[in-house]
């Protein structure tokens, strides 16, 4: 069933048990992103010191895709350098715009490749990107501070 390419087991797992979904009190930048067309909201904190992503934490409401995707993203970014992290976000964005024609590089995106199927469902791409865009925004703000 087409649906299974969207909702892979990994995604449903992250959805039921999201990682880092508890805002840490200390951060170098905090952002709040919304997806106005469906009402999803997310608050995301990053701690970036000396070009290293030390911590990512978040809270928010949204569908399985946006929750799972944010869970995956936050876990993936932790411990990366800022530069590495931004490259990963870029790789993920590219995957999302691939219209189902790419599988994604598991070495780079890890669990993120489970979201490859989302790219076949245009209305869901924004859900998948919400957490990643919030991270990118926060990371860049943190860089500026």
């Amino acid at each position, binding site marked *: *069933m*087409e*649906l299974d390419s*969207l*909702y892979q087991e990994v995604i*449903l797992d992250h959805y039921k048990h999201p990682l880092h979904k508890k805002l840490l009190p200390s951060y170098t930048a905090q952002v709040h992103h919304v997806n106005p*067309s*469906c*009402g*999803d*909201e997310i608050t995301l904190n990053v701690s970036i010191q000396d070009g290293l992503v030390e911590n990512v934490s978040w809270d928010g*409401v*949204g*569908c*399985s*895709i946006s*929750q799972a995707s944010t869970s995956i993203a936050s876990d993936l970014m932790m411990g990366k350098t800022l530069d590495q992290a931004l490259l990963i976000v870029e790789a993920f964005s590219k995957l999302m715009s691939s219209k189902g024609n790419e599988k994604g590089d598991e070495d780079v995106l890890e669990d993120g490749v489970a979201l490859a199927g989302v790219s076949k*469902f245009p209305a*869901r791409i924004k*859900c998948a990107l919400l957490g990643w865009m919030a991270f990118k925004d926060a990371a860049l703000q943190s860089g500026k501070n």
Partner: protein
Amino acid sequence: MKPMFTPAEIRKDFPIFAKTMRGGNRLVYLDSGATSQKPISVLNAEREFYELHNAAVHRGAHLLAEEASSAYEGARETLAKFLNAEVDEVVFTKSATESINAIAYSFGNSAPGSKFALKAGDRIVLSELEHHANLIPWQQLAKRTGAEIVWFPIDTEGRLDLSKTDELITNRTKIVALTHQSNVLGTIVPIAKLVEAAHAVGALFILDACQSAPHFQIDVKELDVDFLAFSGHKALGPTGVGILWGRLEYLNEMEPFLTGGSMIESVTMTEATWAPAPKRFEAGVPNMAQAVGLAAAVNYLDSLGMANVALHEKELTSYALKKFSDLDGVNVIGPKNNIDRGAVISFEIAGIHPHDVGQVLDQYGIAVRTGHHCAWPLMKKLGLVGTTRASFYVYNDESDVDALISGISEAKKYFKV
């Protein structure tokens, strides 16, 4: 007199129902609250306009211009009859959103002291049910004039708390703008008393008829409202056309909204004066083909009979509410009984986000809408991030409800709740 109302027959008039959906399923279209499907007669009317009569209306002495004008003005007559209005009271806009903005901007353009002008301290009365289209234009007008937005709160079933009427509609009230039927919950607002209360304090009453005009008989004289707006695309008509209805005396006193060609009486480099309504509110070459298409849609509805349409939707809603009440873990948001209630059912399934519900239903060819339905303040009031919404129309029947119900069970299975 029980109508001969056979949705399966009606669907044959709508080409889109021949389409095969995801998973090889037939189309179960339960998203008419967002936009309706179009019968072939509407598509043909638009096409005939382009193939035989296309020209700019009111602007040429040639045969095509004559024919285009008479098609366009004929459409206006059809719409006027549909609403029991005077012909010159019917203004073609691009959408209900434009219609409501037109009223708000026209009021904002009025000279201080005019019946339509607002000043600091004046009040605009809305409700928590409002669609953004009947909320933000008033917020903006309030911001520009210093007026204040106040609103009817709703109870847990999504009914207006009418005990607040005297408190809200006072001498300070200039405008009462309410939805006739909630696009989220289906609540039909009993407006008669509110219209009376508004008029008693000299306020203008504006009705958002987006979810009512397509579904039951509207008689502007009987409703006694001052302005009314709806969109053609939700009433079997084309996209890109809406209706602004207003009392003729008001339209002719009001300042125009969009300015340009065709709405003028005279023009110099520095000044212009205005034609009477409806032209005053129809600047530029209008959406002629869409107006003609909307007239064909209204003719289609009339051939079914609006009373029959309403009765059909009522029965289908009863059937659906009954089925929903048997479902575990599924909660209908909005009126649970079928009194003053339209054919819109919002619901939540415990443990599944609306967007995911919609996605699973889509796999079965079932089209519903999910999210805040452009009524975000209502969602916040209800403490929800969104709902899944099924909305019914003339082409839906019990088989569609059954499909929805079994789709919901599949969703619960899929997400293991």
